[in-house]
């Protein structure tokens, strides 16, 4: 028996990364509380149940490497596992070239140092094939902000007098932000919610714009039309700092509120009211979720949203948006190495994503595997990811995995993806390994230390690459003896520029820069990080690349306007990816306290639509798109638009949303996947089709 010790670290049961105090007895976490020194938090229920997760769900963890032999799993040693990998990778490299060995990192690769390590490994191995989940979230915003400011525009909620909650439900995705926003609401902050669902925020909002999915870009242009015509914009800021105002004004002329009503289904008067409230209340912020990153025209919608931010003088304003550098570990991995070591995949269809994130688009990987063009990919290592559930078009993902000669999955559990692998490796959790973690929306990093001994033969993710680097003799760009050496190298570079000791002294998070606002007013040398030094509502660069240089709007491929024929067969509009407070993506489904609060996947259907389809709450229904079908119970509600159907996020089996989604239709600019604004139809499942065995577990 030992005493209870309390360790300060960070909860990574979801990406916001709240500071936590973990109470540990005999290497078992027994209690988790918010770390009061951290600016991120308080924790939500997911953080509180970390001990329960260890006592329940984690009992099924992988503890040893497993090799598939004649379709059966056989326990092997790490030594054997590494030997197997070395033999396979060497053979594939010799036969097809180094790029045929690829890696896919799940869960926010740009936020942790793993992407830095793997990229350096790949440089030594000679493969540009490092992929990640970037196309599923955030980078639509990221690239749009980069094109507009050369910086990321993060909403600053403190001091905000008006907040647009645009395609977001922070109760499920960033719980502590929702807490803060609601407290501000009671102190008079105005809310405008833009969502086809009547969320908590929509219900409590001063104005709710219930729009047609996939028309956010048009809505932004409609609001801009009102703001420009009624001269509600910040003239001084626009004159000095905005490039392309006149061209944008000309573009917006055609997007009158009446015209936008036709496109978006939002009444013109409401568009006017929202535009006026947002433009005349200062400072005002826009909290944009990740939804638009999964819509074909999301980049342009995000550009339109930033035009609203910039024209109203809220760019780089406290209570508006804080501008900060876009920094990813994968990108800075290209520093400190000779230029020729930096590799890029051939014929990348979306080079902008690679340019800003340092990681190319994963959809291209699937395409390369399936077509073997421009070269074959034959082996794949998947770490921290479960693409069978989380990537669009599950059948395509499975087909691609099936085509590979050798698949390695490193994870905590035998996931749906791991089941399809040839070799499965046991991984440590965020409480069991040392990791450098980067925050979105604040200039802060944290050095997460291991506070628990890992069980069985679980390895930290980085160790795999250190070992493979040695054995494959390709660690020339990994000049580190220990993981600390590597982390010290990263921390020593811009923008962090710190010693590892500094980071260690701040387990709650280390701020590497001070947040500052309105630098365009105070700093005589200020320029935005764009070619012109201004906020580029009109971008020459976009024009050169052959894209629309202005914020714009086009109908998505499966919209009722673009494809009325398809709409005859699939009359409803599908949105997927609804986040739950109780789960992160495909995780946490077997933790009793969490599952009890979100027991089974249910598809949300409007009460009127359900009546017409003879569907009642609790009935099993089938949702179909041209890509596939899912089966789950119906949740009949008046809280969703009558032409919209919402399928929840990342359930397994017959409830897997990604049986419906699309990896053939992409945002042309950065490759975002089509997981929302798709055509679908719903019908009641026939008796016998609805067996309880088809429900996800």
């Amino acid at each position: 028996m030992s005493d209870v010790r309390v360790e300060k670290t960070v909860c990574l049961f979801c990406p916001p990364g709240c500071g936590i105090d973990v109470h540990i007895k005999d290497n078992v976490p027994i209690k988790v509380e918010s770390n009061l020194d951290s600016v991120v938090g308080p924790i939500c229920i997911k953080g509180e149940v970390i001990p329960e997760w260890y006592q329940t769900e984690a009992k099924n963890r992988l503890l040893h490497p497993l090799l598939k032999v004649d379709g059966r799993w056989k326990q092997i040693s790490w030594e054997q596992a590494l030997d197997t990998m070395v033999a396979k990778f060497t053979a594939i490299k010799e036969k097809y070239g180094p790029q045929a060995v690829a890696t896919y990192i799940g869960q926010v690769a740009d936020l942790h140092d793993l992407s830095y390590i793997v990229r350096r490994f790949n440089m030594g191995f000679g493969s540009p094939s490092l992929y990640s989940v970037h196309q599923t979230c955030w980078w639509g915003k990221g690239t749009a902000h980069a094109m507009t400011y050369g910086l990321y525009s993060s909403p600053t909620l403190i001091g905000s007098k008006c907040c647009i909650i645009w395609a977001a439900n922070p109760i499920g995705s960033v719980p502590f932000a929702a807490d803060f926003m609601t407290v501000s609401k009671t102190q008079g902050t105005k809310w405008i919610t833009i969502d086809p669902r009547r969320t908590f925020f929509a219900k409590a909002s001063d104005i709710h714009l219930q729009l047609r999915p996939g028309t956010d870009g048009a809505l932004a242009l409609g609001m801009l039309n009102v703001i420009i015509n009624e001269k509600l914009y910040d003239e001084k800021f626009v004159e000095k700092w905005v490039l392309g105002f006149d061209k944008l004004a000309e573009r917006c002329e055609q997007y009158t509120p009446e015209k936008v009503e036709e496109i978006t289904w939002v009444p013109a008067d409401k568009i006017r009211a929202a535009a006026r409230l947002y433009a005349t209340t200062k400072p005002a912020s826009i909290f944009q979720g990740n939804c638009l990153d999964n819509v074909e025209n999301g980049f342009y919608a995000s550009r339109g949203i930033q035009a609203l931010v910039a024209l109203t003088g809220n760019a780089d304003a406290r209570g508006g948006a804080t501008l900060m550098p876009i920094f990813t570990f994968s990108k800075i991995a290209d520093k400190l190495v000779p230029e020729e070591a930096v590799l890029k995949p051939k014929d990348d269809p979306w080079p902008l994503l690679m340019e800003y994130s340092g990681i190319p688009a994963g959809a291209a990987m699937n395409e390369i595997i399936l077509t073997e063009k421009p070269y074959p990919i034959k082996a794949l290592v998947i770490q921290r990811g479960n693409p069978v559930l989380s990537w669009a078009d599950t059948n395509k993902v499975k087909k691609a995995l099936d085509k590979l000669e050798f698949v390695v999955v490193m994870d905590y559990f035998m996931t749906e993806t791991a089941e399809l692998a040839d070799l499965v490796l046991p991984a440590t959790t965020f409480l069991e390994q040392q990791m450098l973690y980067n925050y979105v929306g604040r200039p802060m990093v944290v050095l997460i230390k291991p506070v628990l001994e890992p069980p069985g033969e679980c390895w930290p993710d980085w160790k795999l690459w250190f070992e493979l680097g040695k054995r494959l003799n390709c660690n020339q760009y990994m000049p580190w003896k220990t993981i600390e050496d590597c982390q010290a190298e990263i921390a020593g570079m811009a923008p962090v520029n710190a010693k590892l000791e500094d980071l260690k002294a701040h387990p709650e998070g280390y701020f590497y820069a001070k947040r500052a606002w309105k630098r365009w007013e105070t700093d005589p040398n200020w320029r935005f990080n764009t070619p012109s030094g201004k906020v580029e509502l009109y971008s020459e660069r976009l024009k050169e690349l052959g894209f629309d240089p202005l914020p714009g709007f086009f109908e998505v491929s499966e919209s009722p306007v673009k494809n009325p024929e398809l709409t005859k067969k699939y009359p409803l509009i599908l949105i997927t990816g609804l986040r739950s407070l109780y789960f992160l993506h495909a995780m946490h489904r077997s933790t009793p306290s969490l599952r009890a609060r979100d027991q089974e996947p249910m598809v949300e259907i409007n009460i009127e639509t359900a009546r017409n389809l003879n569907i009642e709450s609790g009935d099993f229904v089938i949702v179909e798109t041209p890509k596939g079908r899912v089966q789950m119970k119906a949740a009949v509600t008046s809280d969703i638009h009558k032409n919209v159907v919402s399928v929840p996020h990342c359930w397994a089996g017959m409830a897997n949303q990604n049986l419906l989604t699309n990896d053939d239709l992409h945002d042309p600019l950065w490759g975002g996947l089509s997981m929302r604004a798709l055509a679908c139809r719903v019908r009641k499942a026939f008796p016998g089709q609805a067996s309880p065995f088809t429900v996800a577990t």
Partner: protein
Amino acid sequence: VKKIPREELGQNIGAAVADWDKEKLVFLVNEGLEAGITSMEITNEILLPILQKACREIDAHDITFPELVLLADTIKAALDLLIPKIRASLSEGKARGTIVIGTVKGDIHDLGKNLVAAVFESGGFRVTDLGRNVSVDDFIKAAKKEKADIIAASTLMTPTLITMEELMKEVKARKLKLKTIIGGWATSPEFARKIGADAWADDALEGLFILDQLMKELRRV
């Protein structure tokens, strides 16, 4: 005077609170008052039980914090109307004790504190609300001026915990004959013990219950 059955009033008020509909809630409360139901009855028998249920639900994670915040903010609109009436009905001598309450310096949030102040008043205490962002000095001055039995301090933000600690030190150093109670999102029973506060409460209703105990202890001294 229109007769409204109390049960129906309770149900209607419950629905208005669930819809965060302040206007409707205030209308219903006025309707109840006109029908002869006292402000104390509406507060203690209808509004506080709704709040109590919500506090139980947040502890069990059956509702989220934002839902609790909007619910409490809605109820506050009714209490703003009812508390002056309760205050008027209690003569000075009859008050069960005197409290000065505030959110400590550095914290600009006061929703929770406002609600706590209202609940304490509805429980028959004389409450002086110092508002938000209150310095240690102001707490002490007000406590002396009002001859307070209890100082109640709250904070939502962790960086302000230090102010709370200073307040407790100052109360001890000046040997003030009063009791202290703390609460708020950033605090915990452990923290209260650590800084030497006499009590910690999880929510307004628990706080009201603890006030009675603190008053008893004071009298014993």
